[in-house]
């Protein structure tokens, strides 16, 4: 409801503002600009949600609603694209979609580049993500393919940035317009870099190639019913401490890719901080009737030092927890 209210409120204000500032603009032009701008703004919010939530738990609430934002953003982009095609490409005797690609072939010109092709391609990428946002697709495509598909949001963002900038070059001269786009890009890039830097300093990647066991952390570094996340041989692993025991599982929640190691043990289960999906720490399996499984790891203790075998067991394999002396 909140998203719908925002969209309606924004649209109302945009129409009023546009009519006042550009009284000669047609209804279709205002519509196209409104929904294009809305989609572009929402995409920025979506892109900074992940890093923001990693930097501060207070922003997890936005993360929970990211897929709703994503679908809404796609619908906004679809309205923008559909009206653009209807307005600029459906009046001739050529197929409107073909017209998008064939009406301007000046790919060798930066100033006259066919920017609509970039927008159309981005729309296809956004469509793939929007139509697979339901949990059914995550389960049946598999987490890796689903994640790869949804990481394409960065390709879509790059295409949309080029679409907006190259389109604006042909129609816009306001420095405020170009400045706003630059600020948006810097904001997205900065949040990603800050979150990545912080993650890297916390994770302390360990190269476990060829080793039987590598030192992961100290027992005292892990709080009770919480985890220490380490990166071993390129995989993020969460080592949980609970009831005087330690267990290690892959950090990637099979539901939506949430960071299990940032969750806690609730009722004896590792509980994902994003949507509450649960796994038993000793075997990485969701309690019945759920069927999600994550990879497990063998740990050993040497005094206060926790050592881990970098080779994961298959998803859902039972591994006896190690007792803390």
């Amino acid at each position, binding site marked *: 409801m909140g998203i719908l209210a925002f969209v309606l409120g924004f649209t109302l204000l945009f129409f009023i503002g546009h009519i006042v500032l550009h009284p000669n603009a047609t209804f279709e032009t205002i519509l196209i600009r409104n929904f294009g701008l809305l989609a572009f703004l929402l995409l920025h919010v979506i892109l900074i949600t992940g890093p923001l939530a990693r930097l501060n738990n207070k922003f997890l609430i936005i993360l929970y609603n990211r897929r709703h934002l994503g679908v809404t953003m796609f619908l906004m982009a679809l309205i923008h694209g559909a009206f653009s095609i209807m307005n600029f490409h459906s009046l001739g005797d050529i*197929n409107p*979609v*073909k017209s998008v*690609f*064939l009406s301007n*072939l000046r790919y060798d010109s930066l100033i006259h580049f066919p920017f609509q092709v970039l927008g159309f391609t981005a729309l296809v990428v956004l*469509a*793939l993500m*929007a*139509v*697979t946002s*339901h949990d*059914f*697709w995550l*389960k*049946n*495509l598999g987490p890796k*393919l689903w994640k790869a598909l949804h990481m394409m949001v960065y390709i879509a963002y790059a295409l949309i940035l080029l679409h907006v900038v190259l389109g604006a070059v042909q129609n816009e001269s306001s420095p405020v317009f170009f400045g706003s786009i630059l600020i948006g890009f810097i904001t997205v890039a900065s949040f990603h870099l800050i979150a990545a830097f912080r993650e890297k300093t916390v994770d302390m990647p360990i190269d476990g190639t060829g080793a039987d066991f590598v030192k992961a952390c100290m027992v005292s570094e892990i709080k009770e019913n919480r985890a220490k996340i380490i990166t071993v041989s390129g995989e993020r692993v969460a080592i949980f401490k609970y009831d005087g025991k330690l267990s290690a599982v892959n950090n990637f929640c099979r539901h939506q890719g949430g960071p299990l190691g940032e969750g806690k043990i609730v009722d004896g289960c590792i509980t994902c901080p994003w949507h509450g999906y649960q796994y038993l720490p000793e075997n990485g399996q969701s309690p019945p009737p759920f069927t999600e499984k994550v990879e497990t790891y063998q740990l050993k203790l040497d005094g206060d030092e926790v050592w881990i075998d970098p080779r994961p067991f298959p998803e859902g394999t039972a591994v006896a927890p190690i007792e803390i002396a």
Partner: protein
Amino acid sequence: MEQSISILIDALGVYMFIGLLFAFWFVTVGVKKLDVGAQGTPWHFKLILVPGSILLWPVLTWKLMAKNHE
């Protein structure tokens, strides 16, 4: 170049048409073969699957074939 783009868009049209036919079969019959959890689900859930089935019909076909070989 124009001809290549034109052929590519025609091919995409054929892809989408096959996807549309596949989606009708998938949401009525195929989905239950792929995911037993989809049995008895309401019509609006199946409606949500239609756009994805149109776009990803080769992946779903491959998944269904892999499931049949299990």
